[in-house]
């Protein structure tokens, strides 16, 4: 049985002029011990998705679909059951751990709170477990007495991870765990997550905008755009031979060290992510797509099969010509970013 | 905590302007645009509009009262009513202890209450802004000294200080306004100083200085325009406090004995035993007026703050 199965999840935020959809009909599946990366620009709905898994969305949001955690639908659970499930089956590590920790309580107390919520244990046992958790993430046990502002960014992130592991969950959701950290610290945190995943048999849902991070750490990658999954598949394949033009743009935005070709041609994608209140018709990516065709603005977009265990939501994949996506020649040095390039249908 | 600042996205200037403009004209045009935008945003707040409406009403009444009610009605020697009589057709709000119409007193009283309120605010905001800008911009010693003085005024309880000052200076309209102004400038000073500090540390100030800009130029051209909106929102709230302060001082007998204000009405009512007689018509109107005016200023002030600091919207 899949550990996490998201079916047709739609999340809308209330707004003056009508509900704004942040997540639109997303399907995801995560098996025990598997690592899945979720990539996308800011505002594409990935953080909303993460919050939805544990039903942590702000009041007023409308959620439809189902989120099955070990077979139980989180969205229809009774509050008592939900609170019991939180942290013990799945835990979440937030981005920007400066504000995700209570600034006036010691970090040890905050970890202990998580333990005490789900377990009856003596103070001594709790203290010992807190020390254990801290050491597991590479921090000395005496750090339990520190306040969040006394720790560095990387240390705080480790504390968040330690806290997430407190009740031995089977799924760890890491929402932008490396954003706002130095590159060296990023590498450390990622290595830690990988190691913990292996040691503890954790399933990991890693959410970030940095595709290269996912390519290195995860087994599978899913890419989100404008609230929808636009590509999904094994990490290496998705990264090296993207089946969706957006994935390709994401991959190319981060030049590969050692690859001289990409060093000479780093290029981003022109334009801005679409406003969820005012989405373009058909395939939402078409205004920025370098390989869009006439059919794109009115296309009824779905995830079509794109190879072994892969799917992508691009018309070229549907038509059986995925090479049109990943074989688009890179721009020569010196040219401005393309806005629109029509490819003959 | 971030301080509220004006966000000025780079918009296209309205097409009606001639293409060749001096920088100052461009700046002025942008400010006008920002003001128009702010007003549009302000209009969306029902509270703000109601408050504004009430204020306009009161100011209009205060200004035009002499046209409808002759000041002779305030003359004690010409009073025609029976003292302390309840509302009637002739005296819609009853009479005071000398037989004067309470309605006339209330309407005329608005002039003094509002005037003292505004005057005191001008003094308070004037001193506060100057102190705040100087402290925030020049920093170091100037800042420390000025802040020490500000802190002292903040700590000392307002009413005892005001009583002491007013008693020594003597009761007159100007003195009361002065006393209130002089005891309430610290609030403005603090806010303005924080903003001045923030603006002074911005890179373009450093660049301007490198280009040879004098402090006066920096203050007049950069710091002041960035603090004015803040000062304005704060001013509105200060007026409310000033009016309440005038009322309190007048009630204690420190107001101008020759003029009627809402506070002096309450003082007269109380000392002449309106409470024991139950002459509610004498006590209720001035109080209600103060309540409405202060509420109105508060609503306007809050709406203004919401316009300036989007984070506060929806409170």
């Amino acid at each position, binding site marked *: 049985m899949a550990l996490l199965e998201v079916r047709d999840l739609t999340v809308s935020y209330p707004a003056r002029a009508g509900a704004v959809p942040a997540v639109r009909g997303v399907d995801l599946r995560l098996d025990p011990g598997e690592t899945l990366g979720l990539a996308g620009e800011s505002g594409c709905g990935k953080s909303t998705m993460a919050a939805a898994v544990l039903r*942590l969305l702000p009041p007023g949001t409308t959620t439809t679909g189902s989120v099955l955690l070990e077979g139980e639908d989180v969205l229809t659970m009774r509050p008592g059951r939900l*609170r019991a*499930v*939180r*942290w*013990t089956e799945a835990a*979440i590590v*937030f981005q*920007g751990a400066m*504000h*995700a*920790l*209570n*600034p*006036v309580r010691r970090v040890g107390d905050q970890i202990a*709170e*998580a333990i005490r*919520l*789900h377990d009856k244990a003596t103070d001594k046992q709790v203290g010992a477990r807190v020390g254990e958790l801290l050491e597991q993430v590479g921090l000395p046990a005496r750090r339990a007495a520190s*306040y969040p502002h*006394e720790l560095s960014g990387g240390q705080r992130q480790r504390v968040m991870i330690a*806290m997430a592991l407190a009740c031995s969950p089977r799924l760890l959701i890491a929402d932008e765990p490396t954003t706002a950290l130095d590159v060296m610290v990023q590498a450390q945190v990622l290595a830690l997550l990988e190691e913990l995943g292996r040691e503890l048999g954790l399933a990991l849902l890693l959410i970030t905008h940095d595709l290269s991070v996912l390519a290195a750490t995860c087994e599978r990658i899913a890419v989100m755009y404008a609230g929808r999954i636009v590509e999904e598949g094994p990490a290496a394949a998705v990264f090296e031979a993207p089946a969706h033009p957006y994935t390709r743009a994401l991959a190319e935005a981060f030049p590969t060290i050692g690859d001289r070709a990409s060093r000479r041609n780093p290029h981003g994608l022109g334009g801005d992510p679409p406003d969820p209140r005012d989405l373009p018709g058909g395939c939402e990516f078409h205004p920025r797509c370098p390989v869009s065709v006439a059919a794109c603005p009115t296309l009824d977009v779905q995830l079509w099969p794109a190879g072994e265990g892969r799917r992508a939501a691009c018309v070229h994949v549907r038509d059986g010509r995925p090479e049109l996506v990943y074989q688009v020649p890179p721009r020569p040095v010196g040219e401005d970013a393309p806005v629109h390039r029509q490819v003959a249908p | 905590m971030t301080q509220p600042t004006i966000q000025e996205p780079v918009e296209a200037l309205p097409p009606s302007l001639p293409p060749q403009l001096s920088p100052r004209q461009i700046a002025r045009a942008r400010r006008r645009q920002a003001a128009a935008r702010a007003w549009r945003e302000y209009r969306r707040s029902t509270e703000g509009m109601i408050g504004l409406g009430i204020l306009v009403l009161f100011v209009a009444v205060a200004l035009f009262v002499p046209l409808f009610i002759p000041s002779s009605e305030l003359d004690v020697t010409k009073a025609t009513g029976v003292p302390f009589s309840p509302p009637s057709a002739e005296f819609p709000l009853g009479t005071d202890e000398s037989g004067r119409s309470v309605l006339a007193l209330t309407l005329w009283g608005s002039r003094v209450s509002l005037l003292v309120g505004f005057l005191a605010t001008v003094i308070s905001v004037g001193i506060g802004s100057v102190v705040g800008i100087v402290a925030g911009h020049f920093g170091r010693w100037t800042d420390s000294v000025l802040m020490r003085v500000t*802190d*002292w005024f903040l*700590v*000392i*309880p*307002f009413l*005892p*200080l005001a*009583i*002491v*000052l*007013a*008693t*020594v200076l*003597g009761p007159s309209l100007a003195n009361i306004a002065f006393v209130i102004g002089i005891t309430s400038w610290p609030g403005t000073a603090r806010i303005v100083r924080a903003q001045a500090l923030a603006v002074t540390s911005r890179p373009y100030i450093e660049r301007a200085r490198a280009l040879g800009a004098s402090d006066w130029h920096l203050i007049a051209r950069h710091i002041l325009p960035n603090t004015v909106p803040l000062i304005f929102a704060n001013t509105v709230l200060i007026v*409310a406090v000033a009016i*309440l302060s005038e009322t*309190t001082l007048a*009630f*204690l*007998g420190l107001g101008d004995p020759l003029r009627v204000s809402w*506070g002096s009405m*309450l003082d007269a*009512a*109380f000392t002449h035993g309106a*409470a*024991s007689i*139950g002459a*509610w018509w004498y*006590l209720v109107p*001035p*109080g209600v007026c*103060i*309540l409405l005016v*202060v*509420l109105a200023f*508060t609503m306007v002030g809050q709406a203004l703050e919401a316009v300036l600091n989007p984070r506060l919207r929806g*409170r």
Partner: protein
Amino acid sequence: MATAASRSFRLTAGHRRVGAKLLGAVLSLAFVLVFNFFLFRVLPGDPAKNLTRNRLVPAEQVQVLRESFGLGKPLPQQFASYVRDTLSGDLGISYKFRRPVSEIIAERVWPTVLLLGVSTMLSTVIGLWIGIRGAWRRGSVFDRVSLGASLALYAMPEFWLGILLLILFGVGVGGFPGMFPTGGMSSPNTDLTSVAGILDVAWHLFLPCLTLTLAYIAEYALVMRSSLLDELGEEYLTTARAKGLRDALVLRRHAVPNALLPTTTLIFLNLGFIVSGAITIETVYSWPGLGLLSYEALRTPDYPLLEGVFLLFSAAVILANVIADLLYAYLDPRVRTG
């Protein structure tokens, strides 16, 4: 070795902060003394004449006044004797009562402490609760009603409210008799140490206390609501919910304690408000405390008495601010160790 040294270093830094705050307080008090001195003695013209301008005072008394100011002596000497006298508790002789000011003040302190103490305690507890509930259930009927009521109470002069309550409950209106006394602290010929005496005082205390409590509740509710609304937007609360904490506990254990910190600061910044309330309400209800004393003093005007009361009020508020500062530093670890 290193820990012992770092522990003692932290102690010194904390002591230094306390020392700095106390020094600041002493400086403020010193400035009050200077202010008092100059205000009454170094005015243009003859101070004695100034002070008696509106009153009919016989010439000999004006002369006595002049002498009491020691106006013949040089200024530094006057100031020195003034400071010496004040620090030894001699605050001069009251014009109105012809008794030492310090004596009179001592007599009137306790009624004010009683009135302010009870009102502040009640209004803090109730006001904070209303603010918390309003913020937590923002937009609900409770929130809108309490917000409206708080704004209205905050906008009205507290003594006006006092007078209205006095009429309603003290004098009686529309045929209903007043249930509470209209003034004073106790009925004549009551033994204040007996149970009946205490009840009598409580009966007299009711209306002034009710008025002040209502006036203060408004401020506390508004400030607490605002602080809590700020806090409710913080991310660590989502973390707490994610851990499985019940909403009520998220509020009680995390949001409210953190919101109380800025609330405390804001409230202490407004302590002057409490003192002002005491003055006007004691006047309305003839409650024999320092507030009524101020009123009586300013009517005369009784300068030594006014100075003395001003000094006392200022000292009290300065002290309260120091305590608040230190308390805040103790409660907020970011200030303590940051």
